[in-house]
């Protein structure tokens, strides 16, 4: 396999990885609680893209059986990611509920401010 083919065959993964790392960066580096959750969403969605890329079959179609079609993409990752998306939204909902409560108790959703409030006690 030549270099070029290798790159063409993998760029999809690499962009997904880049996206995932952007999301992860937002989660770790940012102090705003909502932005962190956005980052988490980006991180997870990008991992999903990585997963689905693994399921793609050249020349295939969606795995809904039909006459005359022999090549389908791999249904298993699709199922897994369906589940993972649901898990993701559940996490987001819970995280946001926490953010609302934190805002109620602290009056802020910035990590630094929360820390300084806790420490000044």
């Amino acid at each position, binding site marked *: 396999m030549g270099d070029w083919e290798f790159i063409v065959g993998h760029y999809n993964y690499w962009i997904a990885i880049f996206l995932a790392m952007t999301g992860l960066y937002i989660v770790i580096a940012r102090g705003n609680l909502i932005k962190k959750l956005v980052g988490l969403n980006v991180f997870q969605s990008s991992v999903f893209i990585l997963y689905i890329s693994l399921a793609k079959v050249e020349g295939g179609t969606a795995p*809904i059986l039909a006459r005359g079609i022999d090549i389908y993409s791999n249904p298993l990752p699709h199922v897994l990611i*369906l589940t993972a998306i*649901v898990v993701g939204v559940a996490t987001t*909902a819970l995280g946001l*509920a926490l953010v*609302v409560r934190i805002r*109620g108790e602290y009056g802020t959703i910035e990590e630094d401010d929360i820390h300084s409030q806790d420490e000044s006690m």
Partner: protein
Amino acid sequence: MKEYLVLRVITKLLLPFILLFGLYVQFHGDFGPGGGFQAGVIFAAGFVLYSLVYGVAAAQKVLPTGILRAGLAGGVLIYALVGVANLILGANYLEYTPLADTMKEGQHLGIFLVELGVGLTVASVMMTVYFTFATWRED
């Protein structure tokens, strides 16, 4: 939002179609894309739209908290109990096959039932979460 007459009318017109689409996705999931989860979300979206236009109180009149709670728990129970039914019929958990005469029918019925459970729970959860956020007041 009382003054936006157009919005109110359109919403009222749209709502049945949204719910119908939800039902279609729910029951057509075996054949095309879709299934309980997507249907639940669409169903919930319909009511969210309704509450955006008519207010949360009005939406809650249609779907009181109690019913939502029942849906929330009921969906999970349907799913889990379909599995238990198999146990009683002497098969493994979630096996479906003994639910009907042939394997195909059994599987089909099982899938239909559990998708129903999924849809019910997802719709209830989504609406509950939305209503809870919408009625939260900081004092």
